[in-house]
């Protein structure tokens, strides 16, 4: 299972000089939403795998464990990145 890191794209942090004050906010929120949704999917799949293992549906222990850890890491990455982004955004906002 591959987890791609958050791809913020070229517009995530762009100041609004040429596009109007709404542009950076939209990109920012969309990017976050996508990241949250991706991570959520990963977490749900890992949860299902755990249940399958516990119920005997699957016996592939190492696969389930790896999936769980990857989901955990993805979640931590999301939370950490989001915090940093929000902090950076607030700093930028205060510059204006």
């Amino acid at each position, binding site marked *: 299972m*591959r*987890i791609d890191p958050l791809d913020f794209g070229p517009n995530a942090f762009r100041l609004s000089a040429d596009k109007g004050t709404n542009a950076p906010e939209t990109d920012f929120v969309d990017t976050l939403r996508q990241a949250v949704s991706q991570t959520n999917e990963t977490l749900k799949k890992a949860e299902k795998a755990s249940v399958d293992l516990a119920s005997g549906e699957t016996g*592939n222990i190492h*696969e389930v464990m*790896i999936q769980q850890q990857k989901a955990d*890491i993805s979640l*931590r990455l999301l939370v*950490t990145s989001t915090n940093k982004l929000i902090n950076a955004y607030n700093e930028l906002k205060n510059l204006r």
Partner: protein
Amino acid sequence: MGGIFGRSIEQFKSFMDYRVFRQEIIASNVANTDTPGYKARDVSFEKQLDGQMKMQQTHSDHLPVSQTGPAFDTFEEPYTHIGNDSNTVDMDREMMKLAQNQLLYDVAAQSVRGKLQRLKTVITEMR
């Protein structure tokens, strides 16, 4: 951009799949050590030329391969002794394979665990 997990975790997982399957084969051999006519089996893990680890299904020696998992190359183990009952299981050899196989499984498990722990540490420290 590659995923933060890279390819190595998938590789280790493949190794572990192989070790589990091989242990299943060894269990079969040990269980059938007294079954007349039983021929001991083993399974190999082919390495492709480009260095990528991959399970290979080549000629399967008349043995059908499981449809559900990745394909492995199972074969009849060449034997040194054969009993009066045509059984080719060499118990000492199977016990040796058992221990070795388990150890290599543990190695892969340890590597995966370590990598995941390190990733966690890096991300946690990023705060």
